[in-house]
């Protein structure tokens, strides 16, 4: 994983009177192996910025270059390939698939890769034990607590050990003890070489990172 370079990125949602400029002319770069926290008030554009970095959300203007690749000049399928190989996502709302078990949810990023079933199972098992949920592998998402769902989301994001982890408030629903253990986990992943970009409201958790990007009304401050 090389550098992430964002050049003059803006994102406008909607048109005319109802248009919202969520991100406004932002330029920054994130080096390989960094652990960057994005902080800001609600509605300041943190999630938007994260999704743009995650090759999920085409900016209205500007360029995103990862590892020398201009991400938004790629086709939809090429971007999908890129996400599969390079990125793990932890969404703000966990986004687990309700009809798949915890283990199946964790294996989701592996569904499109050619690999033995047993290998995929082993990978899911490792990821689940990393977040301390090995014993709940066969439950459905609605059969576990919110904090546990959050941890499943993290397990899913790291199951194929992507070089870049993008997490949108991964500790938002956890008590401080579990929250800290999750932060420790992410810190460990980062130490093992994973680049981490994490949105958080929590100043304590922000200190786990090596750098903070502060956002207000769509601009970096």
């Amino acid at each position: 994983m090389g550098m992430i370079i964002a050049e003059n990125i803006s994102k406008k949602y909607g048109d005319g009177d109802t248009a919202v400029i969520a991100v406004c002319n932002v330029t920054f770069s994130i080096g390989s192996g960094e652990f960057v926290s994005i902080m800001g008030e609600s509605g300041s554009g943190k999630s938007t910025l994260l999704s743009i970095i995650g090759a999920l959300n085409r900016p209205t203007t500007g360029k995103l270059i990862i590892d020398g690749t201009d991400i938004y000049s790629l086709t939809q399928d090429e971007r999908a390939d890129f996400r599969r190989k390079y990125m793990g996502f932890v969404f703000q709302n966990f986004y687990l698939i309700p009809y798949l078990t915890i283990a199946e949810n964790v294996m989701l990023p592996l569904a499109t890769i050619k690999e033995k079933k047993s290998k995929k199972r082993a990978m899911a098992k490792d990821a689940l034990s990393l977040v301390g949920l090995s014993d709940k592998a066969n439950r459905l998402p609605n059969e576990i607590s919110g904090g546990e769902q959050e941890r499943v989301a993290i397990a899913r994001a790291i199951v194929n050990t992507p070089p870049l982890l993008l997490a949108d408030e991964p500790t938002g629903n956890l008590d401080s003890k579990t929250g800290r253990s999750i932060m420790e986990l992410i810190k460990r992943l980062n130490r093992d070489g994973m680049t981490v970009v994490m949105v958080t409201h929590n100043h304590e958790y922000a200190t786990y990172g090596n750098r903070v990007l502060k956002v207000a009304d769509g601009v970096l401050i």
Partner: protein
Amino acid sequence: MTLKNIAVENLRRRKGRAFFVLIGLLISATTIVILISLVHAMKEDINHKLELYGANILILPKTESLSFSYGGLTLGGVPFYAAEIKEEDINKIKQIKNAANVAAVGPILLGPVVVNGHRLHMAGVDFRLLSILRPWWNIKGEIPPEKGAILGHDVARFLNLTPGDRFLINKQKLEVKGVIEKTGSQDDGLIFVPLPLAQEILGKKGHISMAEVAALCTGCPIPEMVRQIGEAIPGANVMAIEQVVKGRMETLNHFERFSYGISVLVLVIGSLMVLVTMMGSVKERTVEIGILSAMGFRKSHIIKTILLESGMISGMAGIMGYGTGFLATKIIVHFFSGGHGAQVLFNPFFAIGTLLLSLTVGLIASTYPAIMASRLDPNEALRAL
């Protein structure tokens, strides 16, 4: 974990949607199987019962006057004995292309006779073939093996004869073995005797006036049989007797066309049901599709996942549709024929055909929803909560 697992788990744990698609295709497949099986059963049935309709082709000598003398009109005074066919000619019918469809060839020798001073008409026929050529006859008495006569209803009344009576025919003494109940045809006015006897009485050894053919054929048209026989016996005038079969066949053909029409309609409705349900399913699963997309699913992966799902349901619907359609047809045929109808047999080709049809319709109808799903923008999709 593969795309197949995702499809299977979705079907397993969200049965409601799957059920709708299944029902839509199941009803289509069942209806089509029933209609096509019924048409098939009816065709089989008509093939079996065709013999009940008796002779349907006439072979006459090339004499104009005979062509209107038979087939309902009076025979009186018409010199139908003016021309004759050789008895051996009719053996040539056994060599025509569709010979297998010929159930019976009945030679007939017609001639005038005098009975008790009355001029009447006698017909020499092969009594052994009567059950095929004249299946509708109801005979009081019996069909004599060799000697003896069967009288038409009107002749018997005119001569005041009943079975067991004896009478003189051109000086030959004959016993009345049977009397035919009124048929409303020219048969009512004829005296039937065995062909060799008639030839002897009329002095026409080896000759016949005409021949009747009973052809049992739904696949090959009667005009084609007529053409083939005409070619085999160039000296004869071969014609089809318009009969009740034609009406039955026409009804069947109408029903067949109607069945195909309904089948197409049912297929269209079934595929619309699949389309609407799958569109709903894609809408409902917008977020999920966004997640898959974020996890690096290509467009083709998403399409494949959705088509796998509808393919599995369609396949199931096809198999179940053949099963229920098959059973329903059995019940219907049994119900309408009281157990004497055509057999409804398991047909593996038909079963596979139904499966393929259901699969095709299910897949085609869900292609559009699948493509819609694959085009969803992941960021928008994930916002759709």
